[in-house]
């Protein structure tokens, strides 16, 4: 009987859907249990869906090599080296293809092995997932199937503690009310149990036979990745409360029946795993710019040599000396390529490998950091991407969330205010809490008890984050996605109010029946419940931010409450207003109608729901307000102060109301007593036009810009911001708003943006990012509402807070507490920046030193592309002789002690604006490289010039010449690094001296044997013969000294005459600890000097 009605209902709803549906393709139709639609319905289009195989792996066994090669050679650098290698294979080249082939092969192989291994792990994981058994109802029986064979439309049986194999629509559950509990810990880290509802019409089907008999069609949107949004429709509207997502786990429910709607790669989880866009650091950008410069140098070198070669050959005597054969002019291009090959080492393959290794290995120091471990949470810092390590040292703007980031997000309910009677209620006053006999009082607390989405979790150990406080006797936790609610409910419990009845929200309570929940969202900033009391009265309880409640209130003691709320907000308390509205049955019917209409909508459902909510939540009667204290996180103020001193501009972006947020800002020292606050809020723009306010403010700011060092703080709210940002207004000067706004912001040391929607946060970040100076931005937050700005900013940092793991998952780095940001930026960021900039500069430098003598040699060998060094030296120079010291330097160098960096944040300014990778510095390094190369080459040249320098009169050949230059080269570049090293641990000693010894030993060995597999023995005894000559030793010492001299002198003189703050500190740190008093004097002086030098600069 029931089934019959269902079927008719179904076909009706389907047809109506189809008629009304305009874009059919955007939705999919699913036949539960693969049953054909009843005859008579419209043309039945069989849609094809993928099977339930999850493929997270990139490669298969067969396509691994080609695909991986393709991916690797898509990188410009690898492609360049491949081209060089191919050129070497094709033309008559000066160096053997091995010299570039071997390093390239090495790099490619190592990367391929790493990626292959990772992919193999993914394959294993995929297989485990794809082959795990699922129970499927087929022909009235439960059949076990492998997960990957699941298809859309299959009816699945899931038992307790099993996770869902694909995205499912809940048909029925073992519970009578058709609900089930689910934890989505693996999806978003929220360990709370969420309640999901079975489809009303099918919730009575409890056995497989019954379920199998369902004939129904589901229409739903094509898959989309938004985890929290989904739009479905059967014959009755379905919402996210019916949709069980793959990856979530069934809890507290014996079994459920559900139908698969999205399978395999179309599940929300799989769609969400698609990678985020890659962020690239500023250092990487400068590195690429340098690469282009070097490529130009390389090409011009090759061109110069090619041209000169033919000029030189134009002399008839030189074109064809009888001892050598001639070259045609036609071969000029080949010559050009040959020169390219000869000089290609100037862009070394190993730089990429070293940089990648440095980033990968270096990021471990963040994870290992003991000081960034939080005892309370048991968490340490997490590095999601190591590509941005050095960007941490370049941050200019910090965008921080307030709640949970600056503050503990550990709420305590400390005050309630009913009708303007305010009770400050510390916990010890609970019993004496006066029960003002008032209807409103009763209603107020009832509202607090009912209007929330808190759940109680009993006894179990929570694997995720603990949301509630451990209760003394009964081990139960309150779990909610909103910490305010937990605080309120806990407060209620302490007041012995009727909370025990609240074990599960959404349950039918003793006295109240929960009819509808108008869930919270960040735009409305309120939530409501509609309940029916045991006496049959209907109420709507609404709770939300004052700004969203007051306009909807028609009666109640608004003024008193408002005064109180504002007072509390100034104190830095979080306030919520509570209101209610009695509903008549007719009104309730209307409400139901509105809601179901909105829920049924297939398109723009969110919008229509919001409209419906807007209509329902009106004509409220104000009950009172609550105040919840959210304490500042430990050392938050100290951290912000440090960031300020480090020259960063800190912006607080919060959804909170202005007063609360401003209070927090004062508490966290973002604003100080002497900070002049500029307000750009709706309140002001109501009085004046936005235009005037903006110009006013900019005038104020600019007036004081000269001379006066007044600190400005700006407060702006969401509404005004969107007015500022609104594009394309008719009057032409609106476009300037953004510019004026930016101008104001630039001159403010702190900015507070309150009343922000999540997307606005990202907008602000984007605005700053796109401004002229292109500053490096950092966004830090803990909640899902911060994700957008975390993704937008150059560096996104997640706090392992209480609002789930969304922020952490989307961030680049995650830290347990806000205070850890200080060490992250001031110490780790600073170090990484210093390290990687030295790495980049040094790599280019050492290759200039390496290749420039070879360039010079061409002038003395008839531009014949004769390499100066032996093949082994060419190949191993970057791989082994000079690679480890710089890698180690870039991992453990500490130019200043860690503690000093933390104590003196102003040091961070020393490296601001990518200053170590600016062009002057780059040119200095390059010039230094060229100078060294000239010294080495001509030193050896004059030594060899037409004479002997052995005591037995024998002569040396060209390979000895090259070896002499190379020996000086290896020692010089290693010593140069040694001079730059400020932190000599035993590892540095080991690696630096070790690689020099390795070079010597290798050279002895390489020249010591007639190598049977080589077709040339040009290096035989060359190194040893060279060392047997006294003048060779003397000239090696001389040339090394002469090469290093200018750099040392430059360093010393600069340090003496124009020291940077860093260098001053270094001198002080040099003084032993016993002279701490002395050191402290020194610090004072440093600060004085720093300020005086700043003044000089400005002059």
């Amino acid at each position, binding site marked *: 009987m029931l089934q019959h009605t269902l079927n008719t209902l179904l076909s009706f709803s389907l047809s109506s859907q189809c008629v009304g549906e305009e874009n059919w393709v955007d939705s999919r139709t699913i036949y539960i249990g693969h049953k054909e639609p009843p005859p008579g319905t419209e043309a039945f289009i069989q849609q094809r869906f993928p099977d339930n195989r999850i493929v997270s792996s990139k490669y298969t066994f067969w396509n691994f090599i080609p695909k991986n090669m393709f991916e690797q050679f898509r990188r410009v650098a690898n492609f360049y080296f491949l081209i060089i290698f191919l050129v070497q294979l094709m033309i008559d080249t000066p160096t053997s293809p091995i010299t570039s082939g071997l390093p390239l092969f090495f790099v490619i192989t190592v990367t391929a092995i790493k990626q292959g291994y990772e992919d193999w792990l993914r394959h294993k994981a995929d297989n485990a997932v794809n082959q795990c058994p699922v129970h499927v109802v087929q022909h009235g029986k439960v059949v076990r199937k492998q997960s990957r064979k699941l298809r859309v439309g299959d009816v699945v049986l899931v038992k307790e503690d099993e996770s869902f194999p694909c995205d499912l629509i809940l048909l029925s559950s073992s519970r009578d009310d058709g609900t089930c509990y689910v934890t989505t810990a693996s999806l978003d880290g929220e360990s709370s149990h969420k309640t999901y509802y079975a489809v009303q019409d099918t919730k009575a089907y409890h056995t497989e036979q019954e379920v199998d008999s369902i004939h129904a069609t589901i229409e739903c949107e094509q898959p989309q990745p938004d985890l929290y949004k989904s739009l479905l429709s059967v014959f009755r509207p379905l919402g996210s409360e019916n949709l069980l997502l793959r990856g979530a786990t069934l809890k507290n429910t014996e079994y459920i029946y559900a139908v698969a709607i999205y399978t395999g790669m179309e599940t929300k989880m799989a769609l969400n795993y698609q990678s985020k866009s890659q962020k690239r650091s500023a250092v990487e950008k400068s590195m690429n710019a340098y690469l282009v410069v070097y490529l130009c140098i390389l090409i011009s070198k090759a061109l110069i040599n090619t041209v000169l070669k033919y000029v030189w050959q134009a002399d008839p005597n030189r074109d064809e000396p*009888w001892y050598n054969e001639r070259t045609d002019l036609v071969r000029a291009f080949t010559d050009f390529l040959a020169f390219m090959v000869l000089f290609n080492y100037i862009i070394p393959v190993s730089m990429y490998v070293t940089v990648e290794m440095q980033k990968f290995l270096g990021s471990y120091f963040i994870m290992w950091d003991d000081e960034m471990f939080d005892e309370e949470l048991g968490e340490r810092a997490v590095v999601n991407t190591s590509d941005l390590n050095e960007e941490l040292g370049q941050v200019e703007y910090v965008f921080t969330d307030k709640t949970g980031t600056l503050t503990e997000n550990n709420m305590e309910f400390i005050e309630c205010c009913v009708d303007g009677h305010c009770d400050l209620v510390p916990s010890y006053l609970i019993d004496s809490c006066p029960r003002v006999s008032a209807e409103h009082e009763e209603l107020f607390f009832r509202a607090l008890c009912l209007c929330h989405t808190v759940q109680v979790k009993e006894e179990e150990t929570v694997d995720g984050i603990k949301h509630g406080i451990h209760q003394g006797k009964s081990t139960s936790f309150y779990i909610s996605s909103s910490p305010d609610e937990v605080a309120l409910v806990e407060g209620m419990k302490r007041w012995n109010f009727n909370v025990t009845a609240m074990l599960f929200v959404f349950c039918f309570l003793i006295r109240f029946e929960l009819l509808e929940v108008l869930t919270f969202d960040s735009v409305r900033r309120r939530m409501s419940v509609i309940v029916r009391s045991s006496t049959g009265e209907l109420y709507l309880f609404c709770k939300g931010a004052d700004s969203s409640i007051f306009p909807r209130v028609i009666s109640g003691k608004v003024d008193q409450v408002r005064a109180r709320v504002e007072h509390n907000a100034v104190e830095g308390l979080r306030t919520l207003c509570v209101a209610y509205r009695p509903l008549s049955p007719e009104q309730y019917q209307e409400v139901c109608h509105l809601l179901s209409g909105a829920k049924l909508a297939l398109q723009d459902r969110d919008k229509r729901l919001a409209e419906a909510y807007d209509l329902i939540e009106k004509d409220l009667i104000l009950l009172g307000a609550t105040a919840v204290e959210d304490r500042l996180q430990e050392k938050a103020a100290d951290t912000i102060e440090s960031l300020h001193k480090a020259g960063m501009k800190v912006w607080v972006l919060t959804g909170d109301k202005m007063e609360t947020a401003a209070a927090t800002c004062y508490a966290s020292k973002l604003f100080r007593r002497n900070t002049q606050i500029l307000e750009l809020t709706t309140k002001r723009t109501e009085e004046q036009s936005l235009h005037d306010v903006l110009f006013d403010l900019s005038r104020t700011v600019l007036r004081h810009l000269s001379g006066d060092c007044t600190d400005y703080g700006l407060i702006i709210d969401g509404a005004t911001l969107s007015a500022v940002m609104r594009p394309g207004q008719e009057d032409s000067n609106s476009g300037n708003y953004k510019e004026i706004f930016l101008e104001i912001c630039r001159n403010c040391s702190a900015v507070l943006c309150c009343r922000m929607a999540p997307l606005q946060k990202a907008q602000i970040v984007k605005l700053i990012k796109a401004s002229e100076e292109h500053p490096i931005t950092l966004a830090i937050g803990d909640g899902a509402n911060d994700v957008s700005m975390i993704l937008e900013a150059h560096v996104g940092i997640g706090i392992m807070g209480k609002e789930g793991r969304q922020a952490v998952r989307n961030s680049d780095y995650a830290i347990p507490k806000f205070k850890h940001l200080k060490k992250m930026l001031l110490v780790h960021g600073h170090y990484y920046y210093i390290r990687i900039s030295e790495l980049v500069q040094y790599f280019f430098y050492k290759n200039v030193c390496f290749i420039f003598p070879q360039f010079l040699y061409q002038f003395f060998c008839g531009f014949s592309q004769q390499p100066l060094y032996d093949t082994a030296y060419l190949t191993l120079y970057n791989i082994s002789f000079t690679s480890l010291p710089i890698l180690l330097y870039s991992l453990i160098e500490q130019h200043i002690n860690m503690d000093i960096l933390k104590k003196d944040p102003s040091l961070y300014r020393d490296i601001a604006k990518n200053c170590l990778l600016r062009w002057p510095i780059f040119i200095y390094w390059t010039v230094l490289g060229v100078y060294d190369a000239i010294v080495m080459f001509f030193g050896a040249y004059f030594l060899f010039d037409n004479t002997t320098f052995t005591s037995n009169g024998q002569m040396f050949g060209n390979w000895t010449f090259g070896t002499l230059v190379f020996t000086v080269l290896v020692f010089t570049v290693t010593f140069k690094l040694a001079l730059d090293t400020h932190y000599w641990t035993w590892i540095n000693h080991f690696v630096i001296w070790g690689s020099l010894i390795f070079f010597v030993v290798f050279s002895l060995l390489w020249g010591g044997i007639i190598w049977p597999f080589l077709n040339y023995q040009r290096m035989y005894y060359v190194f040893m013969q060279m060392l047997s000559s006294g003048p060779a030793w003397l000239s090696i010492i001389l040339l090394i000294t002469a090469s290093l001299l200018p750099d040392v002198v430059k360093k010393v003189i600069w340090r003496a005459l124009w020291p940077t703050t860093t260098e001053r500190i270094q001198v002080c740190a040099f003084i032993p600890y016993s002279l701490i008093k002395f050191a402290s004097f020194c610090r004072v002086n440093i600060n004085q000097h720093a300020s005086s030098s700043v003044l000089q600069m400005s002059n």
Partner: protein
Amino acid sequence: MMASSYNAKDEDGHITVSGPGGGTLRSKKPENTAFKQQRLPAWQPILTAGTVLPAFFIIGLIFIPIGIGLYVTSNNIKEFEIDYTGVDMSSPCFNCSQNFSWNSTRPCTCTIPFYLDQPYENNVFMYYGLSNFYQNHRRYVKSRDDSQLNGDLESLMKPSKECEPYAYHENKPIAPCGAIANSMFNGEPVSCCAHQTHSSFHLYLICLFTSLADTLELFYNDPNGTKIQIPMTATGIAWWTDKHVKFRNPTDNANLTAVFQGTTKPVNWRRPVYELDTDPQNNGFINEDFIVWMRTAALPTFRKLYRIIPKKNSMVPTLLRGNYTLEVVYNYPVRSFEGRKRMILSTISWMGGKNPFLGIAYITVGSVCFFLGVVLLIIHHKYGNRNNSADIAN
């Protein structure tokens, strides 16, 4: 200030206390090792004027004497050089250089008189020098087969393709193959005639009927008019390792003619490699003149050791002051590439031949260091104190 400097200490202390006390929840706690916490004990030097100053003075004080020593040593070395290319009309070798033709059968000889104005003691080394000869040209440098030269029989018959176009001649492998060997400058002064003739069909190969090698002989003109040939030795002019390890005849068989059966001589050579010398220890690939030539020079102007004039006894100088005659068997053509040929007589010190560069460079670098040391001293006094001690006094 005081407080802040102590804070760090406190934190340090805190870390060490809390580190080992791992409890239940500590699985994620990072290990508190010095390496992982980046607190390895380290030496932290900084380059300041104060620290660098002594180093500069020391370098200056060491380098300048070394430089002076080197310079004096270099100046004490006696060197005599004659260009016998014969570019000028007046030059005795002018005719030889002009008359050179690729197919002349008779060697041209010229005699160059010269005067040594000071006696040469100890061993005197005789070099031949070439200018504008690109022995370091890439295709020239690689045009050799080290396996063949090392006595590998397989390579003897199948020279490496690096030797092309001097690998095969008339379908016979060339021994020693390659351009370097082909262009050898000096050979043993054996006055014999051409063995064989070649008809040239290789366009780019020029067949020579004469040995290319120049031969140099030195005579002392006694004041009483007699001409005494100066005895010269050719042993020890090549590296010991080259002579004994790197270069080997295909077998130790004394009969080299049999060993090189089936190969042909380099096209520009007059005699095959096994007739370079009569001494079996200096014949074939291990001929020292050959080995010296095979070590390609670094620069286009170079000299190579030709002969050693051993000292007779400590009382008499090896070469007396007086008139000498250099007899040149002029074979080697250099005019085509504007090359020059020289003969050099030189004594040798511990630091080799005459080369003032090293001495001058040492003196220069030493003085620069010393000068910089003084400059730094001034800077250090003027500014270094300002940074540190002066302010403390305030």
